[in-house]
C-alpha cells in the first residue's frame, strides 16, 4: 500500500490529497508521504523513523498527566494532575493539544482522533517532521538523551517501581518518590557529560544484585548486635579528609549525591532516586530548547503546508483552516493585553526563524551589518538546519534576534530594583537598546540562571553528618518561603540527619539567610522499621 500511495502524488500532481474534514488511515498515509517528500527532499530534514498513533481524548488526558510519556510509573501526583486537567477540560476552560510527540527512536507521536484531516496534516508536518528533526539533530538532545533507550528505560522504571510497591508497600515508595520529585529541578548534571546508561545492563545488574542477596540471605545476620555499622566516627581525620575530597563537593546534582552518599537509604530507595533523576535529566534539554523546538516545528509545518498548497495537493479551504490554527498558535498579545501571559515560545521561535530566512535571502543593509556571516548567503535551509542543530534558546536569541524583529515585536526591557519604589523602562527597541534588550531576553531563557542554584557544599561526616546546602543568591533573589521548608524536610528524610540550607550572595559572599532542620529523632532506617 505504501508503494502505491507514494507514487500517487507524483502522478496526479494537481489533485488534492483530500477534501472535507474526515480522515481515514489511507488518506493519512497518502498525506504523510506527500509531506515526507517535501520535508526530506526540499527542507533536507533528517528524522527518526516515525510511529504515528491515533488516540482518543481520554487517552490524551492520560498522556498529559504522566508528563507526556507513554509509559510512566504510578504516583499520586499524576492522578492529581489528571483530576485538574479533567476538570478544566470538562468545564471547557482548556482544549486538548492536537498532538504529543516523544523524543524517542522511532519517534512516537500521538494524534487526537477528533482532529480534522486538515489538522492531521498540520500535526504530521509539525510533530512527525518538525519536532522529530529537532530531537534528532539538536546537540543538547544528542548529548544528553538516549532516544533509543528511553522507552526501555521507562519500562524498566515502571516495572521496578511497581515491584518496589509490592515488596515494600505503597507508602514507603510514595515517600521516596515525593521527596525525589521535590528535588527534580536541582537534580540534573549541567556541565559534565553524563555517562550513557546502558539500560538493559542496568536492569540486569540490579536483578543480579537482588538475587545475590536473596541467595545469600542468612537469618543469623539479623541476630548480630547492631551499631557496628554506624561507626564512621571512629575513622581518623586523614581518612575523613580524603573521603570528603572523594565526594567531589560542591555537587549540583542533589539526588545524585544523596543517592550515592546518603547514610540511611536502602538499595531500592537509591535506585528509585536514580530513576527520578534520570528522567529529570532526560527532560532537561527540552526545558532549554522549548522556544526553538516549537519554533522549528511551527516553521516546518508552515513551510510544508504552503508548499502543499502551491503544488495543488491541498484545497484552499484546507489551507485556510490550517492557517487559522497556525495564527492562533503564534498569537502574541502585548504586555498590557489581558490575555498576555509571557512571551509565546511558538510566536517568538517562528518569527525568528522566518526572520532568519529573510535575512539570508533578502537582507537589508542593517542585516548585513548585524549578521555578516549569514546575510545574503542564499541557502536559508542550511542556515536554519545549522541553527536547529547547534543552539539552545538562550544562545539562539543571543545570536539571531535581529533589530528588525525587536522593532516588530516592540520589545522593551524593565528593570526592577528592590530598593526602588518604581520600575524603570531601561531599554527599548532602538539603536542604543538592541543589544541590551537582546541580552536580557536571552538571559531569561537560560534555564540554569532562572532556577534556584542550590548545591551541596559540605557534609560534616566526622561529626553529626549534617548536610549543608548552599543557594547562590543572584541579584538578591532568594527562595520562595512557600515550599522551601517542605523541600528541606524531604531532603532530611532522604539524608536521615540534620540539613542546613544557607543563602550566600553571589557578589559579596555574605550569608543572607540560614535555615536548619535538626536531625530527625531516629535517623534513617530505624525510623522506618
Amino acid at each position: 500500500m505504501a508503494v502505491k500511495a507514494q507514487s500517487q502524488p507524483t502522478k496526479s500532481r494537481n489533485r488534492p490529497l483530500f477534501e472535507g474534514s474526515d480522515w481515514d488511515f489511507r488518506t493519512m498515509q497518502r498525506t504523510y508521504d506527500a509531506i515526507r517528500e517535501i520535508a526530506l527532499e526540499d527542507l533536507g530534514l533528517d528524522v527518526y523513523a516515525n510511529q504515528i498513533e491515533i488516540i482518543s481524548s481520554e487517552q490524551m488526558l492520560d498522556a498529559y498527566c504522566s508528563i507526556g510519556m507513554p509509559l510512566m510509573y504510578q504516583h499520586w501526583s499524576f492522578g492529581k494532575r489528571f483530576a485538574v486537567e479533567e476538570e478544566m477540560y470538562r468545564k471547557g476552560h482548556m482544549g486538548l493539544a492536537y498532538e504529543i510527540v516523544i523524543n524517542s527512536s522511532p519517534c512516537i507521536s500521538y494524534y487526537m482522533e477528533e482532529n480534522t484531516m486538515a489538522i492531521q496534516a498540520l500535526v504530521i508536518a509539525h510533530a512527525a517532521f518538525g519536532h522529530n528533526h529537532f530531537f534528532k539533530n539538536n546537540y543538547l538532545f544528542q548529548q544528553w538523551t538516549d532516544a533509543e533507550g528511553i522507552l526501555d528505560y521507562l519500562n524498566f522504571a515502571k516495572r521496578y517501581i511497581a515491584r518496589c510497591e509490592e515488596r515494600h508497600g505503597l507508602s514507603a515508595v510514595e515517600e521516596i518518590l515525593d521527596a525525589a520529585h521535590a528535588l527534580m529541578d536541582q537534580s540534573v548534571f549541567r556541565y559534565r557529560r553524563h555517562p550513557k546508561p546502558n539500560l538493559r545492563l542496568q536492569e540486569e545488574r540490579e536483578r543480579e544484585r537482588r538475587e545475590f542477596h536473596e541467595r545469600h540471605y542468612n537469618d543469623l545476620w539479623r541476630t548480630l548486635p547492631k551499631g557496628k555499622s554506624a561507626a564512621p566516627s571512629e575513622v581518623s581525620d586523614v581518612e575523613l579528609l580524603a573521603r570528603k575530597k572523594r565526594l567531589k563537593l560542591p555537587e549540583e546534582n542533589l539526588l545524585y549525591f544523596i543517592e550515592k552518599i546518603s547514610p540511611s537509604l536502602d538499595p531500592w530507595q537509591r535506585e528509585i532516586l536514580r530513576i527520578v533523576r534520570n528522567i529529570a535529566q532526560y527532560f532537561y534539554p527540552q526545558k532549554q530548547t522549548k522556544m526553538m523546538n516549537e519554533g522549528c516545528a511551527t516553521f516546518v509545518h508552515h513551510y510544508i503546508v504552503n508548499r502543499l498548497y502551491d503544488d495543488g495537493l491541498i484545497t484552499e479551504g484546507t489551507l485556510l483552516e490550517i492557517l487559522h490554527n497556525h495564527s492562533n498558535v503564534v498569537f502574541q498579545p502585548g504586555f498590557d493585553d489581558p490575555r498576555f501571559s509571557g512571551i509565546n515560545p511558538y510566536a517568538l521561535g517562528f518569527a525568528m526563524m522566518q526572520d532568519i530566512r529573510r535575512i539570508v535571502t533578502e537582507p537589508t543593509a542593517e542585516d548585513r551589518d548585524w549578521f555578516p556571516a549569514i546575510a545574503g548567503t542564499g541557502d536559508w535551509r542550511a542556515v536554519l538546519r545549522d541553527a536547529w542543530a547547534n543552539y539552545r534558546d538562550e544562545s539562539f536569541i543571543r545570536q539571531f534576534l535581529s533589530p528588525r524583529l525587536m522593532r516588530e515585536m516592540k520589545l522593551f526591557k524593565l528593570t526592577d530594583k528592590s530598593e526602588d519604589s518604581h520600575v524603570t523602562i531601561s531599554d527599548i527597541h532602538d539603536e542604543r537598546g538592541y543589544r541590551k534588550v537582546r541580552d536580557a531576553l536571552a538571559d531569561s531563557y537560560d534555564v540554569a540562571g532562572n532556577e534556584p542554584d542550590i548545591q551541596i557544599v559540605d557534609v560534616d561526616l566526622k561529626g553529626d553528618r549534617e548536610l549543608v546546602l548552599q543557594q547562590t543568591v543572584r541579584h538578591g533573589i532568594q527562595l520562595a518561603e512557600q515550599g522551601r521548608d517542605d523541600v528541606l524536610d524531604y531532603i532530611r528524610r532522604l539524608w536521615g540527619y540534620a540539613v542546613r540550607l544557607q543563602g550566600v550572595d553571589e557578589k559579596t559572599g555574605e550569608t543572607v539567610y540560614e535555615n536548619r532542620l535538626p536531625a530527625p529523632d531516629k535517623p534513617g532506617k530505624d525510623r522506618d522499621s
Partner: protein
Amino acid sequence: MPFLIDRRLNPKDKSLGNRQRFLRRARAQIKEAIDKSINGRGVADASNGGKISISSKGIREPRFRHASTGGDRQRVLPGNKEFVPGDQIAKPQGGAGEGRDKEASDHGEGQDDFVFSLSREEFLDIFFDDLELPDLVKTSLKEIKAVKMHRAGHTSSGTPTNLSVLRTMRNSMGRRMALKRPVHDQIEAVRQELDALEAEGERDARMLQRLAQLRIELQQLERRQRVVAYIDPVDLRYKRFEPKPEPRTKAVMFCLMDVSGSMGQHEKDLAKRFFILLHLFLQRRYEKVDIVFIRHTHQAEEVDEQTFFYSAETGGTVVSTALEEMQKVLQARYSPADWNIYAAQASDGDNFTDDTARCLEILQNDLLPVCQYYAYVEILDEGEYQLFNNSNNGKDLWRGYQTLLETWQNFSMKHIAKRSDIYPVFRELFGKQDAAAQGGR
C-alpha cells in the same frame, strides 16, 4: 515508513492507578469534605458524587522556587506603545509588580482549595469507608440458593426443542460425504438418461447393454441412498444447559414508620435520612434494591414515598399493624428464598399499651427469622435523649424490643435525637464487627 497505529481501542483509564493513589493520599481530606457535605446538604444530593473541594494540604508538591518579590530583576516584554528609556512606573502596592501575576497564574489556583470530581462509586466508597454488612448477613450473602440455567456446550441427547440444527446438519453432511451417499442430482442424471433411452423406439445391442447397465446403476444408487440416511440419529446434537448456582443479588428494604400525631415533621425528617442511608448502603451491595414503605397509626398501609414522608395522618398508635402489613407484603411479593430482606423501623417509641407483646410475637415468630437485618431507631427529642440515652431505659417499645437483642443477632436498636446523630448511629449499626460481637456468635 511510518507506522500508523490505531490506539483508540486500547484500554482506557491508564491513569486509574494514579487516581487511586491520589484518592488514597487525599483520603483524609476527601472524607472530611464528604462528611461535611452530608451534614450540610442532605444525603440525597450528595450521593451523586460530583464535585468536591478539599484543602490542598497534604497534596502539595513543593519545589525550590525563586521568591516572587525582592531582588533586582530584569524583564523583556513585547508590545511597547509609548515608553522611552528612563520612563518610570510606580510599583503596585504590596510588592514588586510584574513577577506576581505570573506567580499567581502558575500555581496560584489549587494551592488553597483543590476542586475535582468524584464518581458516584468513589464517593460511596469513601462515604461508607469503614462500614461493613454485619457478619451474619455477609454469610448469607454468599449463600447460594438461586439456580440459573446456563448454556454449556452440546450433548447427543436431549429434547427436540434444544436441537442444534447447525451442529446436526454439519455432522450429517460429514457422514454423508464419508459414506458417499449419492446426491439427488446424481440419481436424477442417471434416471434422465435411462428415460431418454427407454423412450427411443429402436434399440440396438449396444443401447440395450447400456440400458441394463443404467438400470443396475440406478438401483444401486437408490439402494445406497436408502441405506445411508440423510439424517441419522448419530448426527443429532442438542444444546446443553447446565444448572449454575447464582448468588442472590436482590434485596428488599422495608421502611416502617409511625406517622401518628406524635411524630412531627422533624422526626420524620430524621427517619428519612436514616432510610436513605440504608438504601444507599444496600445499593452498593445488591444489583437490585426494592423499597417498601409501610406507615402506620392504629392501622397500617403500604404507601408510596411521597405519602410516606409528607402526608399528615391522625390516629392512635398500634405498631403491630405495621408488622402484620410487612408480613403480608412479604408473603405476597418477596419470598425469602429469592430476596435479601432488610427492615428499618422508625418510631417515637409510643405504642398502644398491650400491643408491644403482640409486636414481639410477630417479630420473633415471623419476621426476624427471615430478615437479614432489622434495625429499630427510636427518635426522641433532645430532652428525652438526655434522659434515656445512657440508661437502658426507654419508652414502651424500646423496653419491649430490648428483650430481642439477646436472642437475635440480626436485630439492633438505637436512639436518635438530632440530625448529626444519624450518621454516627448508622456507622455504629453497620460498623465493622468487633471481636465481642463475633465471640458472641
